[in-house]
């Protein structure tokens, strides 16, 4: 009887702590997403951060670290059932997570329009070109394309600042892109690939659809890319 009660007690404690953790988890998500406890217009322009186990344990879980996996499991379930967000482990070595939206995008515009993050447009261009070129592209192709869009990697851009750093460091750190050195190149060159996070978060089918609209072509006319988009969207579910 006592044992049962002890277990119940522990269960309640876990539940309570998981609720507490979830709440503070959400708070810390917000903290990590916005970079500051309060909210100003500026912070909406940050891309959402990666959540690392280390940070979570240090700032949120603290004393409950021995039931950390249980807490994570419950938090993930809450996120999924209540908010429609999927908690995905993006790096199994360092235990980093991201939150992605599990819900289908509504056809009508959202009720609360937050200002669009211009960095998203830049990321879209890079991911789009990389995808259409078969998934790997030499960095020069990207820099040249961006230059045509008045974004020069060598100069400071009005909207993006240090573009080279944004693309090769920030986007890579966020796991949206991979920036890999090509061997035997002199001077040293790199190629871009899709990062793990892009694989999970970005819909190739939707990119192809947009491409179709821009070029006034049927998306299916790009047969290889279309096939790739079909197979990747089935794996994303």
């Amino acid at each position, binding site marked *: 009887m006592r044992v049962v009660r002890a277990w119940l007690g522990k269960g309640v404690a876990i539940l309570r702590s998981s609720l507490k953790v979830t709440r503070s988890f*959400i708070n810390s*998500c*917000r903290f990590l*997403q*916005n970079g500051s406890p*309060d*909210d*100003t217009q500026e*912070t*909406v322009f*940050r891309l*959402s951060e990666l959540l690392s186990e280390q940070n979570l344990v240090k700032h949120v879980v603290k004393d409950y670290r021995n039931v950390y996996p249980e807490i994570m499991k419950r938090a993930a379930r809450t996120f999924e059932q209540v908010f429609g*967000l999927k908690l995905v482990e993006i790096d199994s070595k360092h235990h980093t997570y991201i*939150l*992605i*939206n599990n819900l289908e*995008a509504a056809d009508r515009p959202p009720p609360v329009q*937050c200002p*669009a*993050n*211009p*960095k*998203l*447009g830049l*990321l*879209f*261009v890079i991911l*789009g*070109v990389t995808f*259409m*070129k*078969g998934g790997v592209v030499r960095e*020069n*192709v990207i820099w*040249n*394309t961006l230059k*045509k*869009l*008045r974004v020069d990697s060598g100069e400071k851009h*009005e*909207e993006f600042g240090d573009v080279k750093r944004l693309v090769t460091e920030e986007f890579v750190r966020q796991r949206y892109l991979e920036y890999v050195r090509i061997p*035997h190149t*002199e001077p040293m060159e790199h190629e871009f690939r899709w990062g793990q996070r892009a694989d*999970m*978060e*970005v*819909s190739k089918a*939707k*990119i192809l659809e*947009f*491409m179709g609209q*821009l*070029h006034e*072509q049927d998306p299916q*006319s*790009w*047969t*290889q*890319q*279309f096939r790739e988009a079909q197979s990747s969207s089935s794996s994303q579910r």
Partner: protein
Amino acid sequence: MKKSRRNEEAPRQNGSTGRGRAGQRQNDEVQAGPEASRAGLPEESDDNDLGRRREIRSKYRDLINTVQQNREDMLSPATDKLTEVLEEANKLFKDVRRAREAALDAQLLVVATDLGKEKASQLFSEGSAFDPTAFAEHLLSFMGLNRLEDGDDDPQNGGGADGYLPRDAWHRLSRRAECCFRTAPSFHYMMGSFHAEPPAPKQKTERQRKAPSKEAKRIMPTQLKKMEESHQEATEKEVERILGYLKMYYEEDPTSPISYYEFVIDPNSFSRTVENIFHTSFLIRDGLARMYLDGDKLPCIAPVEEGDIEAASSSSRKQCIISISLKTWKELIDTFEIKDSIIQPPESQNE
């Protein structure tokens, strides 16, 4: 001799037989070396030899440069430039005797085969080709590029002579691209946030005191909505009337800034002053008037030109909270020496 066999070799393809050739060459090189030393070349040919070798090395370096610099050109299926380069290298190799030149040849091969691989991958892609240049052009149109008619216009906003991008170009693209991303929504307050801290301390300047605290953000007090619904028409009329006063005052002397406090304060009635502040905030909200700080960091107000109203609606607006108390109101009247109100009280209203 092995060399003659090499000449009868099949014509080179884009790097597909690379490894085989390199292997064969190594054998040639090894053969040539001892032979040359055994022959005991006379001194004259030694000098010629050095010169010739230098020439060969230089030509190899040129070829390598050509491949590296003209990548785009060589990749195009329309040209046979890559084959030409390889044929050139073949000719050069005939005279190669030493390891140093052979190493350069190997380097050229590596660069060329890499290019060859790229070219081959182009061959295998079915369906439509994707051209990043065309893509960029379409994007520019989508983002609302204004192509200038005459080339004489000054380029603005970092555009070249062929048009400039509007300020919200990247926002437009991002808005459209958003649907491709399954990002979790970030948290932000719906109605803007209140700073819970006490208002910033009043700054005392030499001449005047800045009386009420002005927060960096402005929001409409939530009370407003209720008033709006019940007294909508009356409020609208008032706001329009006040806009009329503002414009009239501004027209009298467009160059001199209108002090905000002078504008809203009615030295005869505190409640009227508060109402003026309230109605003026509507003008600001709708972008019909704008507030700014002048050289002394005092707030000023000015009407927005007709043409600018459209542009202003897309740029971000700042919010701020203004508070005023009876005491502050009196201080303002004394400080600014306000004798009468700019905004005349409406005749019909009951005080």
